């Protein structure tokens, strides 16, 4: 015993400094096994290679798994191979070049699939302990993407030696995830499941869900005691009887029911002299007659009997149908189910938070689109159907600026004032040329501005074409603010939210704190009185209309950042914008804010019930608004007294 120990120590002392040769030595010592490997016998050798600490071991193993390891017939040495057209390029086990050799001089080692699997597992250990942290992280990602029971052992082995704290935490988490799914000891799995608590990670849910996977099975009588039953299904209440019977048929526990197609085929096959089972073919044009004919054939023995309703009921009575867990251990499934329940509660709260964020950003988009209207329609009471086209103009201005200025940050900063200027000019021109002449005829203002709207749309189409033009946001607006796997919001939406707040402030400041705002309010309330106080109502109207239009232009740049810029961009927002103003209460900016919030939250709320169908959400939202106006015809915040006008 002592001699062996001494020998072993001597061997260790001898081999450690010469680790480079060790891999080669292990291979040579076990040549016979390496040449004809089998899954049962090769394990210790692969483990020895992996544990040798030889830097060449990884490349040897990799080459071996991919049929790149061979024996030179001349001296029996192991070589690494690279196949060329008709020969091999040879390297020795440390990677040094050995020239090339003909194919006949080399025996290629071809490990079978089982052995390759063992080698691959051993290789994972190498990458998990690779000196390069990036490679270790890659290995972790690949294990997480495709978790297998084999990865568990090497992963555990690599945790202690991990130096990077972030990677170590990641490894520990992954280890618990793998333990939960693949550890042979149920207690360890339950403990791993419990260790997560109500964690919201997608990886945890992806790991838990397969544990709870069920299949629908049926047996005659009751299930055996060891079966891990998720739920016993009662035909008629838990699932339709027809579906339950289909399960019995699928498991060959009962004869198939006669489908109409089969019955039809059977009848067709048995037409004898113009009649089937005694019934003339011409009479078989209803299901009842066909059933009669089939029964006649059945009693004559020409067709196999099909299950009748009574037989179906009896078969369902005598069988138990249940959802059976694929996972046999009830402890594990119970723990997984409890964990998922805890998660789903927290998840529900988080989803509500995410929905709120979505709704907020939608509300701010509607608010941005409507705030110009809150001035032109809300304050001045001018119906401007071309408002959407001012939004479109702003968006196209942004697009043109981006064509000229390649830097996205600069171009956006330039585009905002330019869009305002363009839309302001268009608004002032429209006010002077058209709207001023239609002051007392609101319906005709609607029609005239609509005429302008179709003309502007078509002009945009002629200039920019029909395809959508991109308006690219600067890089610092890419990406999203991620709170966890559920709650996140993109930076563009945050920017739009901030912009909406800024415009709300701007509007309030102009209306309440500036000379212009004072005059605007005076002119709206009573133009004649305002005029006699020395205010020029025409000039004020023109400026106000320009201001509202200019803000629509800026909104266009913001909207263009997340929606494609087309000539129909404005069309998509015009009805919603008017709805926002009307629902909120004409003439009140807080009303517009409330209207935008109501519509945004409502639309997201309806979408949540039926996520696949945004069209339905919009439909129901509009119907809701029509009903809402029944109960509050003047909107959420109704002006009272003289300010209410009519």
């Amino acid at each position, binding site marked *: 015993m002592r001699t062996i120990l001494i020998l072993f120590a001597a061997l260790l002392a001898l081999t450690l400094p010469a680790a480079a040769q060790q891999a080669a030595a292990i291979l040579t010592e076990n040549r016979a096994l390496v040449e004809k490997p089998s899954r049962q016998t090769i394990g210790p050798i692969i483990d020895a290679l992996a544990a040798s600490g030889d830097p060449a071991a990884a490349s040897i193993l990799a080459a071996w798994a991919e049929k790149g390891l061979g024996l030179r017939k001349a001296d029996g040495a192991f070589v690494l191979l690279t196949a060329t057209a008709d020969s091999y390029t040879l390297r020795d086990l440390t990677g040094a070049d050995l020239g090339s050799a003909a194919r006949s001089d080399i025996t290629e080692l071809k490990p079978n699939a089982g052995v390759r699997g063992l080698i691959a597992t051993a290789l994972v250990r190498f990458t998990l302990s690779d000196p390069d942290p990036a490679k270790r992280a890659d290995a972790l990602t690949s294990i997480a993407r495709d978790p297998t029971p084999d990865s568990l052992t090497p992963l555990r082995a690599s945790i202690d030696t991990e130096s990077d704290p972030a990677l170590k935490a990641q490894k520990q988490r992954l280890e618990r995830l793998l333990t939960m799914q693949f550890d042979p000891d149920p207690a360890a799995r339950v403990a791993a499941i419990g260790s997560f608590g109500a964690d919201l990670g997608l990886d945890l849910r992806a790991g838990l869900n397969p544990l709870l996977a069920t299949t629908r099975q049926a047996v005659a009588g009751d299930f055996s005691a060891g079966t891990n039953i998720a739920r016993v299904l009662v035909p008629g209440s838990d699932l339709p009887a027809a579906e339950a019977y289909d399960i019995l048929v699928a498991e060959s526990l009962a004869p198939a029911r006669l489908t109409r197609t089969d019955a039809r085929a059977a009848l*067709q096959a048995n037409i004898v002299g113009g009649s089937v089972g005694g019934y003339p073919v011409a009479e078989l*044009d209803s299901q009842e007659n066909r059933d009669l004919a089939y029964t006649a054939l059945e009693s004559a023995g020409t067709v196999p009997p099909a299950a009748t309703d009574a037989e179906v009921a009896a078969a369902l009575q005598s069988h138990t149908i249940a959802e059976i867990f694929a996972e046999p251990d009830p402890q594990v499934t119970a723990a997984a189910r409890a964990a998922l329940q805890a998660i789903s509660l927290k998840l529900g709260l988080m989803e509500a938070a995410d929905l709120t964020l979505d709704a907020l950003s939608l509300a701010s988009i509607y608010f941005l689109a409507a705030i110009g209207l809150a001035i032109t329609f809300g304050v001045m009471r001018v119906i401007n159907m071309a408002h959407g086209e001012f939004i479109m103009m702003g968006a196209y201005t942004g697009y043109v600026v981006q064509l000229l200025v390649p830097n996205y940050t600069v171009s956006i900063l330039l585009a905002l004032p330019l869009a305002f200027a363009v839309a302001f000019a268009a608004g002032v021109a429209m006010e002077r040329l*058209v709207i001023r002449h239609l002051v007392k005829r609101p*319906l*005709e203002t609607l029609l005239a501005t609509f005429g302008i709207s*179709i003309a502007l749309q078509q002009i945009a189409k002629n200039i920019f074409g029909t395809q959508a033009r991109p308006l690219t946001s600067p890089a610092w607006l890419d990406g999203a603010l991620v709170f966890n796997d559920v709650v996140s919001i993109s930076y563009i939406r945050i920017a739009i939210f901030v912009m909406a707040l800024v415009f709300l402030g701007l509007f309030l400041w102009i209306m309440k704190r500036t000379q212009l705002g004072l005059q605007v309010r005076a002119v709206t309330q009573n133009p004649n009185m305002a005029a006699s106080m020395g205010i020029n109502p025409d000039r004020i109207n023109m400026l106000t209309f320009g201001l509202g239009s200019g803000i629509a232009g800026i909104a266009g740049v913001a909207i263009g950042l997340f929606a494609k810029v087309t000539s129909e961009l404005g069309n998509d927002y015009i009805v919603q914008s008017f709805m926002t103003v009307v629902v909120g209460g004409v003439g009140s900016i807080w009303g517009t804010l409330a209207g935008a919030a109501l519509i945004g939250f409502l639309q997201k709320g309806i979408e949540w019930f039926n996520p696949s169908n945004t069209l339905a959400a919009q*439909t129901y939202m509009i119907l809701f608004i029509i*009903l809402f106006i029944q109960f509050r*015809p003047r909107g959420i915040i109704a002006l009272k007294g003289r300010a209410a006008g009519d």
Partner: protein
Amino acid sequence: MTQGFLSKNPSVLIFLAILALFTLGTSLLSEAYGIGFLSTSFVKTLGKTLCLCLIAVAMDLVWGYAGILSLGHFAFFGLGGYMIGMWLMYARTEEIVLTSLANSPLPATPQEVQDGIATQIFGVVGASELPAIWTFAGSLPVQLALAVLIPGLLALIFGWLAFRSRVTGVYLSILTQAFTLALSLHLFQNDSGLRGNNGLSGLQNIPGLDAVPQASVSIWFLWASAAALALGYIAAAFTVSGKFGSVIKGIRDDEQRVRFLGYSVEGYKLFIFTMTAMIAAIAGVLYYPQAGIINPAEIAPIASIYLAVWVAIGGRGRLYGAVIGAAFVSLVSSWFTGGRAPDLNLGIYTVRWVDWWLVLLGAAFVLVTLYAPRGIAGAFDRFTHLLPPKRRGAPLGPGDGSLQEKEADQ
């Protein structure tokens, strides 16, 4: 009464005479019953134009006379089209399915026929069951009745809700527009049961009339459209004449005053709104078999606004104005957008009318609204001396109806 009605409204007789002359002329120039000068497709265009004139009459009634600028009447038009389209498609598919099932050795059961039709019609949207709204699609009389009743009922409910809460003026317009948008968005969904954005197609093939050439069918539809237009025109003219018409016009000019006089303004408005919705639906029933296809885009709010454009250009408040506007604008529009209008070469830029027609229409519309609020029909006023006094100058009182400077001088 009828005698008095016609003698009080000579324009109705003139209109009917012109319409009869037009129908006769088109028939004599058609391929089926005349010298073949007009192609079948042009006869169809004329027939469709007559349907558009009918809905324009309805629009004039509701807007020009009752002052309700509805931006949703094309939705009723489209609904009528969908209803008749359901029958056309169902009956036609039934013929096809029966022919193919006739080859099988067993006679088909009703269920098999039904399933065959459903698969044929709804294969496009990945469904194979007939939705509940197609229950009566096999019966022409029921479907025809529904084509009028469903738009009428919708208009009744919507109008009742809107008028009851005193939504008027531009608010009502926006509300009708929203209603139209909701309807078209609903129809755009595949599970609305009307084939989503594929719409209904193949409507020009009339079931049971396979042997009749399209040339004859197109003339028959032209006659039917002309008859519907004539009847609709007489009904509209009758409605706006007499006491009922005076109340309607009173509501347009000053709703409050009429209400204070004791009339049920809501009732009158509801009647007009529902009646015009039904007329619009009848126009749709006749239009879509000639057009051959209907899809939700036809119902979009923009279509209803174009309808207002036609009536405004033709001249509001005159029934013949609406007809002139619809006929003129839709024919000119199809001439320009059909690529038949010659390009205008300006040297530096060639104006292609396919691209620029809408700009021209929009500009023309603005100009008409600004400078010729009476539209084309305003020209007739010069002959009939219906010109109102010129009311220029500053108002002398605070209200809209107050005397103005020029009037006071007279």
